[in-house]
Structures are given as structure tokens and as C-alpha cells.
């Protein structure tokens, strides 16, 4: 029991009318949460950790390296090749 249980202001707070949540919203949220409960069971936590901790960063790094290499190749084809043609 709270020592403040006899405090008149807190009593008034306690008696405030309860704002309702409509049944449709209650059902919708329960359904989504149940889906999350079932979904997590199908996808083990360890698999999620491996994916977010190793596989995804490795893929991002690889994509970054490929992008950088292709950019370098493309710039080389424009500037270095053009300079070679001009020097002839």
C-alpha cells in the first residue's frame, strides 16, 4: 500500500475517468503482438544476431567496395583515357 493513498490530490487523480480504447484497436494490437510472438519463434534470436552482426555488415562492406572500384574504373576511363588520347 502506498503511503500516499490518503492524499486528497492523489485520490482525485485516481478517480479520473478512464479514457477508453475501442475494441477494434484492442483487437488489432493484440493480433499484431501475437504475430510478433509467433514470428520470433520461427526466426531464432541467434539467426537474427548472426544476420545483423556479421552477414549484413559484410554485405554492406562488399557493396561499398564494389561501388568504389567501379567509380574508380569509370573515372579512369573518362580522365586517364582522355588524357592519353590528347597527348597523342
Amino acid at each position, binding site marked *: 500500500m*502506498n503511503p500516499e493513498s490518503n492524499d486528497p490530490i*492523489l485520490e482525485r*487523480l485516481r478517480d479520473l475517468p478512464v479514457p477508453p*480504447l475501442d475494441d477494434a484497436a484492442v483487437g488489432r*494490437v*493484440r493480433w499484431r*503482438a501475437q504475430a510478433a510472438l509467433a514470428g520470433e519463434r520461427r526466426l531464432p534470436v541467434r539467426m537474427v544476431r548472426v544476420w545483423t552482426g556479421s552477414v549484413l555488415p559484410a554485405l554492406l562492406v562488399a557493396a561499398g567496395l564494389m561501388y568504389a572500384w567501379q567509380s574508380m574504373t569509370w573515372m579512369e576511363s573518362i580522365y586517364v583515357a582522355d588524357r592519353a588520347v590528347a597527348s597523342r
Partner: protein
Amino acid sequence: VKPTDAELVAGLRRRERAAFDEVYARYHARIFRFLLRLAGQREVAEDLFQETWVSVARHADRLVEDTDLAAWLFTVARNRHTSFRRWSVLDWMNTGTLSSEPHDEAVPADRRADARETAALLERALAELPSAHREVLLLVAVEGLEQQQVAEVLGIRHDTLRQRLSRARAELAERLEAATKPGRRVAVGGAR
């Protein structure tokens, strides 16, 4: 026989749907009420309410055996709200949105006795409190959590909680008094 909170925690750890349904049935109205008064906006509260329960479902199997179910649920809800506040201008927007009364008018004396008006005044005064004060009052007075549970939800020590509760109560009383005095304007958007 209804399962105890401890039995529900055990069920949640096993990710049992029946346990989750029982927890939801038992606590959803309280969690929504807490979020609505904390956020001050119905749309925001509904979003946070959904995020809270999805988070509860996702992390159910990480619960430890002796978890205080009520304290944990309110902690998850509060964390969702805290996270939301970091990314929004909620404090600027939310003042008094639960009240239908305009802020800059003192309440006429002849309507003070009306119960609805009194509730609206109280809602407004509560909404104008700084978030830290509002949440401690909501958890202690409205939700009736034990002080030990509230300290756990807020992540503070028991003596800090007592001080915060005392300050929050005093500020609420001050705002209520200011709002009900004829000719005085309600202090809106005070220190947050």
C-alpha cells in the same frame, strides 16, 4: 483460477500464446491509460501502445524468472514514450490536448463544483507538468504501483522517487490552485 503474475512470466518466457493473451487482457487498459496521459495525444498513445505490446511479444523469452510483470510492462511502455520524445517535438505540441477547454481562460467560479469540469482541470494540470513529474504521479496515484515498482520503472533510487513524488504533487497542487482561483490565469507551458 486465474494465473498469478509469476505464472504468466513463466508462460511468457516459454512464448506461450495463452500467457500472452492473459497478460494483454489484464494490463492493456492500464498501459493505454498510462501512455495516453503520458503522451497527451491519442494518436501518439495508440502508436506507442502498439509498439509496447509488439516489443513485449518480441522480448518475452528474455524475461528473467523473478520479473515483476507490472513493473516490466510499464517500463517497456515508458521506454517507448521516452524513445518517441527523443525524435519529436512532443513537449511543444502536447500541452493540454486531453482537455477540451482553452488554456488561456480561467475557469468560472460557478462551474467549479461540476465534476466534469474538475476532472478536466485536473487533466489539464497533469498535462502541463514536466514529463518526469507526470509519469511519477501516473504510476503512483493512477496505476497504484508500489513505490518499489515505480522506482524500478523509472530506474531511480527509492529516496529519489520520494523526493520526485513530493515535488510533483506540490507542483500539481500549485497548478490546480492557480487554475481554480477566479481572475487568475492558468500557467500554461511552464518549466519542462
